[in-house]
């Protein structure tokens, strides 16, 4: 399953400053989109606004053409997953972390599904029994991806998923995102690394002073 995520003329103000200044973006089903920009350009705030994790001061977020404000936040965020730069791991094992999303909605995740998710993000299923908080940065990113995929996610919004990783691990994450995109997921990756934005292979937006433009 995949969905169209759209941000129209989004504005986020902080203490009078326009952190996001009329940004518009369209992510079609199964499309990979990179938002590239320098530190402080507002790209992370834009990603949070698209995930509805922060309030916007103007503009609209739409999912499959429906205003996000008309969709229950729990439902919207089950379909549109957001991953922070350093995803927080919940207490317990990796398996417990994978089960967190479905458990919130009264569902359970079987062992076979958990193992499948590990394969999908390029991790050995033996990691399922490990304490999640002992994982390395790269492993955390992958477990967070798997955790998001344990929900019926259709769009993945990733805020600097490679920033805290060494170059090799960063490239492997981008390759993994390309693979997930090939399976029909829509991907939005915020990054300051131009090589990673290019490697993702889809539309590239540039974010400057809260404004978005399509990178040629």
């Amino acid at each position, binding site marked *: 399953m995949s969905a169209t995520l759209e941000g129209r003329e989004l504005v986020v103000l*902080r203490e009078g400053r326009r*952190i996001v200044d009329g940004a518009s973006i369209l992510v079609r089903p199964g499309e990979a989109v990179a938002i590239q*920009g*320098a*530190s*402080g*350009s*507002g*790209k*992370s*705030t834009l990603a*949070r606004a698209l*995930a*509805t*994790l*922060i*309030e916007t001061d103007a503009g609209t977020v739409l999912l499959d053409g429906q205003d996000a*404000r008309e969709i229950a*936040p*729990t*439902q919207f*965020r*089950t379909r549109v*997953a*957001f*991953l*922070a*730069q*350093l*995803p*927080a791991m*919940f207490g317990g094992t990796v398996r417990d972390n994978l089960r*967190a*999303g479905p458990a*919130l*909605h009264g569902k359970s995740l079987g062992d076979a599904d958990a193992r499948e998710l590990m394969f999908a993000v390029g991790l050995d299923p033996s990691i399922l029994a490990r304490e999640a908080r002992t994982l390395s940065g790269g492993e955390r990113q992958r477990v*967070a991806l798997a*955790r*998001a995929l344990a*929900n019926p996610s259709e769009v993945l919004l990733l*805020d*600097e998923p490679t*920033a*805290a990783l060494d170059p090799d691990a960063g490239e492997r994450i981008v390759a993994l995102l390309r693979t997930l995109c090939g399976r029909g997921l829509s991907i939005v990756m915020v990054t*300051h*690394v131009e090589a990673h934005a290019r490697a993702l292979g889809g539309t590239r937006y540039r974010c400057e002073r809260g404004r978005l433009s399509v990178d040629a």
Partner: protein
Amino acid sequence: MSYLHISLPRLLLSVGLIAVAVALSRRSRLGLEGDLIWGALRGAAQLVAIGYVLLLLFDHEHPAWVGLLLAVMLIAAGATSARRVEHGPPRSVLFPRAIAAIGAGALVALVPVFVAVVPLHPWYEARYVVPISGMMLSNAMNVVALVFERIFASASSEADQIEALLALGATPRQALEGQVRATLRAALLPTINGLLTVGLVALPGMMTGQIVSGTAPEQAVRYQIVILYQLVAVAAVAGLVAVAFARRLLFTARAQLVLPRARPAICRRGGARLRGGGARRIGDASLDPAP
């Protein structure tokens, strides 16, 4: 009833106990001498004042006067529990909520007892209503202060966890569940410890007071049991109501986490705290990660 009177000179001798604490503070360079002296003076002045107020009240017992005194006590409790919250929203935001939480807890603990367990004649009988209400308000005040302090602090320090849960589709209630559980446990622990150690470690103030003033120990004990159970109820209700208010303050209607702005440490001591402060949305501190 006969009891040993404390003469004024003997009362002054007890000031020596404060002097011991002040001397220890100075010797250990704790810098608490001023607070200790001010606290001792203020505490004594407040007790003397309430003594005279109670004398007046007993002589002119009227529901309006009893109600007025309870209202003053409630306001003072609300102001105190909203004052020392370093990680929370401004005092003006917390104060009415503290009043509501403390008031709800006190109502639940007091009304059934005064109706069914210790029925009063008249219902506003000051020598029962005022001291017992005071104990409830005081306990509720401490619980609410603990809840506010702890829930906002843990929401701030564990914001990434809460937001990760929200991002997975959690409701605010689900996202804050761990912090709420830890907060309520911490806030109720002193009351539960009081239940476990009463009679073993401490003889509670009210029971001691009754026994000293000549009440039969058996009756004093019964009163104390009722008071202890009231303290449990007041702590539980006030704590839960305070948590509900904190949850509403921490999330928008669209289930977005909004953290109160931390106040600079330099402005937190004493009463000279910065007003206002506003709210901080997640990601404010660092809009984008450094490359």
